[in-house]
């Protein structure tokens, strides 16, 4: 069979590889996947002064974004201004549209403190629940055991999730983002080593009885 296609670029391969992992972990909430190396993107660690950039988290979010969609950034509990150098850095590499947080399709949160901003993202409507935001949030360490118990589609019975640095209040914002299914925000958590977990709005999250 003669083939007719050009070899994908490194970024294209990265986007496809990352996508399969995101699809997998969103389909199986609580399952932790390891995102690929992002060294080739050369993400500056100090994109936002005073906050450490998680390059895995940022790159995973960017892999889904292009000129047809919009992406906002947040750090230390506040949205990053439209013309902040970090926003410009993302824009130049993705062509992402700039829009208000309430209208944005993607949000990249630099830290768990920024989870407090989840309520201001779009949750979709009853007729078009897909017109809602997807948030990527950087966390310290993810583990498959710990404080939180997950259930819902994609989970056989229940599964446990540990997030080293999230407070109950911060987790409360994620829990609230799925309190009116099918409306809601889908969340990916990415830790410092590139471990990633998907929490679609269909996942119920409660504090584990054993913890």
């Amino acid at each position, binding site marked *: *069979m*003669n*083939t007719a296609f050009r070899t994908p670029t490194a970024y294209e391969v990265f986007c496809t590889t990352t996508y399969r992992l995101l*699809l997998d972990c969103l389909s199986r909430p609580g399952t932790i996947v390891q995102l690929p190396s992002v060294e080739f993107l050369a993400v500056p660690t100090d994109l936002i002064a005073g906050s450490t950039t998680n390059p895995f988290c940022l790159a995973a979010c960017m892999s*889904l974004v292009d000129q047809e969609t919009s992406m906002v950034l947040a750090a230390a509990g506040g949205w990053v201004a439209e013309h902040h150098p970090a926003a410009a850095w993302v824009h130049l590499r993705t062509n992402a549209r700039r829009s208000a947080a309430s209208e944005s399709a993607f949000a990249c949160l630099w830290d768990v403190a920024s989870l407090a901003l989840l309520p201001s993202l779009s949750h979709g409507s009853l007729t078009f*629940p897909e017109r809602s935001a997807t948030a990527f949030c950087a966390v310290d360490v993810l583990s498959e055991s710990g404080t939180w118990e997950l259930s819902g589609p994609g*989970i056989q019975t229940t599964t446990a999730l540990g997030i080293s640095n999230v407070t109950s209040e911060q987790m409360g914002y994620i829990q609230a983002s799925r309190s009116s299914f*099918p409306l*809601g925000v889908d969340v990916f958590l990415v830790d410092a080593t590139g471990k990633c977990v998907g929490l679609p*709005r269909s996942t119920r999250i409660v504090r584990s009885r054993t913890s």
Partner: protein
Amino acid sequence: MTEQHTNIYNFGFIDEDSKREVRRQLLKAVALPGHQVPFASRDLPIGRGWGTGGLQITMAIIAASDTLKVIDQGDDESVNAVNLRRLLTRTTGVSTTVDTQAATIIQTRHRIPEEQMREDQILVLQVPMVDPLRWVEPNLERATVMHGEADYGRMWVYMYESVIKAGDIRIATQYPVIVAGRYMMDTTPIPRWDVLRLHNADHLSLFGAGREKRVYAVPPYTTVEPLEFEDFRFKTEYAEGQRCHRCGATNTFLTGHFVKSTGTDEPGHWVTSCSDASYCDKQMVAQGWTEAQE
């Protein structure tokens, strides 16, 4: 015409931004099990209605490391399966297989393979008609509102009338189901035989309708409940005493076809055999038959 001759297609035919759009909508579909998510749907070099939705999903998710299986009616060698496989391998170079166990992505029309799929496999289904409500509400705008409000009363009435008039629910394929207790979903033209195999499955199922421009999904371990009544249970096509004339299987979906007789004057006769041809072959090999070279 210089460009026509030198044109090098993108890996997976559609361009990267098109893939990204399908990918984004599939994530929404997974987060909203059974909900139809609109997507842009590009024009492909095969006909609208010939599997362009499933193709676009496969093109959007496939990587060079994948092993692909393409079936139509359960058969890897069906003319349409051959043709779609030809397009996908020509534009990706991925290796293909007929063995359900060896595949990472299975693209299918009308069937779910007989062999149980694993957690690490993705089933991509080609969908002709997306909305189960079309039988009671052909207007998309109104049907969208009905889904939004989970207003499925008219569909239950339709099913009930069907039982009264025909003694059975008249929907053969495309049987409506409720996914994860919320959305009513069309099960594509898979037979009823396959409907229950979507229920709490180990694998992820992705559905694509190119002409209708919708994708939807059933994540693993998600309830898929066919519409039924307490005294009128959902029934599959299984018939007492059914048997594949080739491999002898009694627990597969069978289709009818005509076979020539060899060595006699008798013209031939009608038989039934497994629609999942690679499964049937596997069974026969297990029984000591060998495969003929094509």
